[in-house]
């Protein structure tokens, strides 16, 4: 038996099945993704995602409160403008993630939501106007996979500069229903 031809045949078979498998698996169908319409009211969210650009996202969660609290302790004597600048600088430095890391972070949130079905999470997504909307779809499609549908989400237009120009960014002490007190981050636009 001609060994070379036999090996040729094996490789050809391999390429053939790879190609056919690729052709079958890429078939897609059109589907609907529901998004709630935004409401222009004061609100709370557990997580604020600010898209900075196509490669970076500012992820503000409960850890952000500690960062802001630390800055307030260090330079609380600054004027409000300078204090806001210092706070935003610290937040951008410590809470910015790359877009490649975002799916893993979102999956971690979804897992957390699945482990706590009684809890309701709200994620606010702020997106600059010029961003392609498929970036929003990527985030929302992940959040919508929560098993108990206990992640609420909303998206609004907004830029990092608007955050930086917020009138006030500070931590406030909030008491929950169980009487536990914790620091929340408050941003006043």
């Amino acid at each position, binding site marked *: 038996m001609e060994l070379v031809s036999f090996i040729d045949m094996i490789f050809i078979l391999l390429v053939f099945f790879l190609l056919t498998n690729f052709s079958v698996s890429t078939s897609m*169908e059109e589907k609907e*993704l529901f*998004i709630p319409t935004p409401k222009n009211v004061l609100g709370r969210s557990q997580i604020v995602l600010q898209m900075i650009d196509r490669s970076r996202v500012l992820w503000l969660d409960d850890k952000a409160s500690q960062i802001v609290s630390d800055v307030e302790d260090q330079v609380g004597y600054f004027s409000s403008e300078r204090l806001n600048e210092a706070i935003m600088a610290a937040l951008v430095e410590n809470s910015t993630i790359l877009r490649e890391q975002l799916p893993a972070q979102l999956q971690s949130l979804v897992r957390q939501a699945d482990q706590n079905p009684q809890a309701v999470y709200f994620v606010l997504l702020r997106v600059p106007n*010029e*961003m392609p909307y498929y970036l*929003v779809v990527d985030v929302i499609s992940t959040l919508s996979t929560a098993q108990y549908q206990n992640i609420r989400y909303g998206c609004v237009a907004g830029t990092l500069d608007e955050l930086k120009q917020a009138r006030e960014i500070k931590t406030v002490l909030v008491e929950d229903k169980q009487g536990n007190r914790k620091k929340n981050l408050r941003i006043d636009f």
Partner: protein
Amino acid sequence: MSFAKYEEKKQLSLPSLIDIIFLLLVFSLVTQPRAKSRNDVQNRSVSRNDMELPVIQGIAQSRVDEILKTLMFEIVFQQPQNTQSPRMVYALRSSGNDSITYERAKQQALRDSLFAVFPENFLSLSNMDFEQTPACRFIRNEISSFKQKHFFKPAFSNFIEIRAEKNVEFRIVQYIMSQCSAYGDTIPRVTLRTLSGRDRNRGL
């Protein structure tokens, strides 16, 4: 005495022949356009324009029917595949009790000029100027008109659809959402059309 030379008859080399057959098969797979399956045609007849919709992974969202259930805004580039060309928005109206397919609604939109073009500099416009563009006024009027005819009271089942090229800027999508939210709970949500893999569990 000379002996006749005995030459072995050359036989057809089977592995080489199979090689050639598979090479031809691979060549035809790569060069010929893939023939659509019946299911593909049924599911993608609404996307005959072959728009580049956002692709999502993971759990399937609702599958779409050919019949338009509500008002749909389709946002495309004026020149397909040219992301530098102006954005156009079409209003595809559903017809309440009668069933109308996407194709027919699109034909009606073209026939009745139910479309508008965003200015090229729409991203640099202030919010007020952006809202005064003909395209935004068109969107506003379409939503208002559709809401008056079909959404009489707040209901979770009221929604507007958006079908847009994946690279369309968020500003346009967000404007449509904000116009819907102006009616409060009467239009509580919008749907975005996306592409997703088939549900294997459904045996499709």
